[in-house]
């Protein structure tokens, strides 16, 4: 079958936009600069791997998902819009979505059953790898999470790091659905404001 590559169209320059180094690398990949992907890989792979690992848990499945995510970053780099947030936010969202999809899929249903009663609240900032940047970020996060109410804290951490849906969180915490829904939003807003201020 004929397989031909369409020539990419010209990209409008966005010289005035201040961006972080990772966003710069991602934008270069989006513009067709092949050499930019390796430094981008080195910058994002630890975050993608760590995040996928903490949600999926199983090592082999985490490797699969991480690989999918990193190739997807390459494939859809053109969709990244620095006006809508940082590259790390974009990459982390993509990785988290894929990780959550994996734990909710039929293949992983065994893991769900196994941990359905696991209501221990993850404390990611207590178990941080040796990277100095992460440690600093973890300190900030620990402090900000400390300002949340218990219900806010449990709702948001269970949803994010365990990949539970908010109805599942509601069941685990024996709390009404609507309450969990608003607590997750309140928690995220408070964390945003606290992290932004520090």
């Amino acid at each position, binding site marked *: 079958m004929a397989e031909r590559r*369409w020539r990419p169209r010209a990209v409008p320059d966005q010289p005035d936009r201040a961006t972080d180094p990772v966003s710069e690398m991602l934008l270069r990949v*989006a513009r067709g600069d092949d050499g930019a992907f390796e430094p981008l890989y080195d910058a994002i792979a630890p975050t993608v791997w*760590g995040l996928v690992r*903490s949600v999926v848990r199983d090592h082999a499945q985490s490797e699969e998902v991480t690989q999918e995510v990193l190739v997807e970053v390459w494939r859809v780099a053109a969709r990244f819009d620095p006006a809508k947030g940082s590259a790390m936010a974009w990459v*982390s969202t993509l990785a988290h979505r894929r990780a959550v999809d994996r734990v909710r899929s039929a293949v992983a249903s065994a893991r769900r059953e196994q941990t359905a009663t696991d209501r221990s609240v993850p404390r990611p*900032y207590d178990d941080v790898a040796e990277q100095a940047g992460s440690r600093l970020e973890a300190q900030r996060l620990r402090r900000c999470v400390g300002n949340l109410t218990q219900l806010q804290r449990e709702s948001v951490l269970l949803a994010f790091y365990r990949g539970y849906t908010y109805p599942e969180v509601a069941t685990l915490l024996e709390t009404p659905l609507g309450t969990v829904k*608003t607590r997750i*939003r309140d928690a*995220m807003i408070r964390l945003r404001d606290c*992290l932004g201020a520090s």
Partner: protein
Amino acid sequence: MTPNPEVHTLAGAYVVNALSEVERRQFERHLADCADCTEEVASLREVVAVFAGTVAEPPPEHLRAQVLAKTAVTRRLPPVVAGRDQPRKPLSRWLMPVAAALLVAATVAGVLFGYRATSTSADLNRQVEVLKQTQDNYAALTDLLAQPDAKLLRKPIPGGVATVVYSPGTHTAAMLGAEMPLAPHQHAYQGWVVRGDRMQSVGLSKGGKDGGAMLARDVLTGDQIAVTVEPENGSEQPTTPPVVTVTLA
């Protein structure tokens, strides 16, 4: 239309991917019309980046080579050109289930079609490849249908209807074979993306209810999806005039 204030409260759960698939789509439809929510979601995603950053750890060494090997053979989406991606009305609620049903039929058929009886290992390898592509296409097709800007373009043809699902924002389109008449004996429909004087094959379909779907990536508004009748293994270039041509709009 007055937005339901309740929907707003889903923003947090949306950002941490704690919504069911149905609610996620509902919320994304709402996002398309709600500038405030879009801004809120963008700002909350920076928290997600911090959540992720604190669990970062070095990935297994061999992953790097695997990823680089895959990117070397994976095409990137073309850069988005300013002005091309106008917000569009999402696929209406009653059309979505129609498209989803067609797609399920089409995909299951694609898998079966790929697994005809074989005798040699070369055949078997080829079929494994077909199956893998079918699975990749399935993921891409479900992704396509979930896009808030996905829409159906339908065109009557003799003995059936040609249906294209098109998402301008993700530059993806699919021609669904399910409502097309069966292709003639030992022949198949072959889909082509037509841009200017260039044509690129996007796959084969037998038509009929097990008709499969042909997936076109990297397409732009104004491109055409054409379908020709070809020998069942496909042709390098079209050898017959198109039975239908749908312009992506």
